């Protein structure tokens, strides 16, 4: 049996901006068979046996952390969780010192969420272990972008040529950035829709269409990726109120009913029901929000698996090797 090695991802996964279309597609393709593992009675394969992974979440997260943890455990890795509360970070230790101490205990990978944009890259340049960015400030959240891509591909059958509109608080959203990079690289048409105060000033430079009316966005789009209105970041009068936001930009069933085609609705969670999305949409036939959650585990398994394989020159050698 001859097997072709996967295109190497390198040491880290920091941003979809860094990846080629081939690399992104390879991650999505690798995620496919990993879906089935989570349906097994024994939801575990031994492929990362003996690997130690640290989940360092310096910002609150439930969904992403648990999703990574399931992915790691289903691949048989050993995992440790640290958070900023109750760790030496509170005592004033720097990020690099924390990581170097962990490395001294011989770890293989760090999955990190951090409030500062660029934190993942900063760390990746300073430690030998693989770093997976689980969200850094307003920069990127690559595995969320990947699971959104996988979900769109599952339902639309392709990504190339699909019209995706990202709705809401694009300004504060690393999910939006990862989506825009990933979708553009795979040939989707991308738009953003939201109040001007919540769109980055340079949004046009990302080669995306801009809608300021949700009705126009819904008329154009095949897919809506509805972002959470990050209430904790709504300081300085960015939106008047969540009720006002819902009235003008909320994705409601009435608005979807006027769409010329069936629109697929994604949401990265957690949802503010009645703010950016209405309950009848969230629970309705257009929404694939729980499918995103399921795909999240598969995509993260694929990323962990591909990064754990290590050096590209060795993957090259695998291409040549034949065995039976």
């Amino acid at each position, binding site marked *: 049996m001859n097997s072709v090695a996967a295109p190497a991802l390198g040491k880290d996964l920091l941003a979809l901006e860094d990846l080629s279309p081939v690399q992104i597609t390879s991650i999505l393709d690798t995620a496919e068979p990993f879906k089935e593992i989570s349906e097994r009675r024994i939801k575990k394969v031994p492929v990362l046996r003996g690997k130690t992974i640290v989940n360092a979440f310096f910002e609150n997260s439930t969904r992403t952390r648990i999703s990574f943890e399931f992915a790691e455990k289903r691949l048989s890795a050993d995992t440790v969780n640290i958070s900023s509360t109750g760790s030496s970070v509170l005592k004033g230790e720097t990020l690099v010192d924390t990581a170097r101490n962990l490395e001294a205990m011989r770890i293989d990978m760090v999955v990190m969420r951090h409030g500062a944009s660029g934190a993942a890259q900063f760390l990746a340049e300073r430690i030998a272990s693989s770093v997976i960015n689980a969200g850094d400030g307003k920069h990127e959240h690559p595995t969320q972008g990947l699971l959104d891509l996988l979900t769109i591909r599952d339902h639309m059958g392709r990504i190339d040529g699909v019209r995706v509109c990202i709705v809401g608080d694009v300004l504060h959203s690393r999910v939006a950035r990862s989506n825009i990079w990933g979708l553009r690289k795979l040939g989707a048409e991308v738009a953003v829709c939201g109040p001007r105060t919540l769109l980055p000033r340079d949004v046009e430079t990302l080669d995306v269409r801009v809608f300021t009316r949700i009705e126009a966005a819904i008329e154009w789009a095949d897919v809506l990726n509805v972002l959470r209105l990050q209430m904790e970041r709504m300081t300085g009068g960015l939106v008047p109120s969540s009720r006002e936001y819902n009235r003008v930009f909320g994705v409601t069933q009435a608005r979807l009913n006027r769409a010329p085609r069936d629109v697929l609705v994604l949401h990265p969670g957690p949802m503010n029901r009645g703010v950016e999305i209405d309950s009848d949409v969230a629970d309705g036939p257009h929404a694939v929000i729980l499918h995103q959650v399921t795909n999240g585990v598969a995509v993260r398994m694929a990323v962990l698996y591909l990064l754990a394989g290590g050096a590209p020159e060795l993957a090259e050698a695998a291409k040549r090797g034949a065995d*039976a």
Partner: protein
Amino acid sequence: MTRLPAALYVEPMLPTSRQTLLDSAATEELLRRVARDIVERAGGTTNLVLIGIHRRGVELAEWLGGEIERQERTPIPTGSLDITLYRDDLMSIGPRPVVGETRLPDRGIDDAQVVVVDDVLFTGRTVRAALDELADFGRPRRTLLCVLVDRGGRELPIHADIVGTEVFVSPEARVEVLVPEIDGRFGVDLLPPPSE
């Protein structure tokens, strides 16, 4: 009917180009014999399940299952196993794209007579991985190994219960089983080592 030798001895010299060891007709004849051997070795078709190892073993298992159904007039559940995630060499060769599907029959494998089907038996490492993976799916009453070609060269204490034919070749040479879905026809070929 093609006369099939029990074993094929090939010059220990390395081949310089692709050579046919068994043509399409001879390979099908061999497979029909293997189907009969499976039923004989399993003592019938009760609780018989054929599981092919990805990739070429999958099609062989399906073909053999269909052949046994014709011979014995009873349905034979089949499945497929991709052992990539159970390999022992991921860290030394880098990850492979996991394209294979692992799909077991609806009945499961508990208390079944499971026949693991692969194309070529060489080092035995693939079979080791397959046995590990199967154990995560259930507990068969008995597991048998069926290969179309046994080419020797084991690196683990593993042997096949049902063997189509043995091939004695240089360890560097490659033996390939061809199947219709992937290669357009059945066959067994001998190939030179992969070029650097």
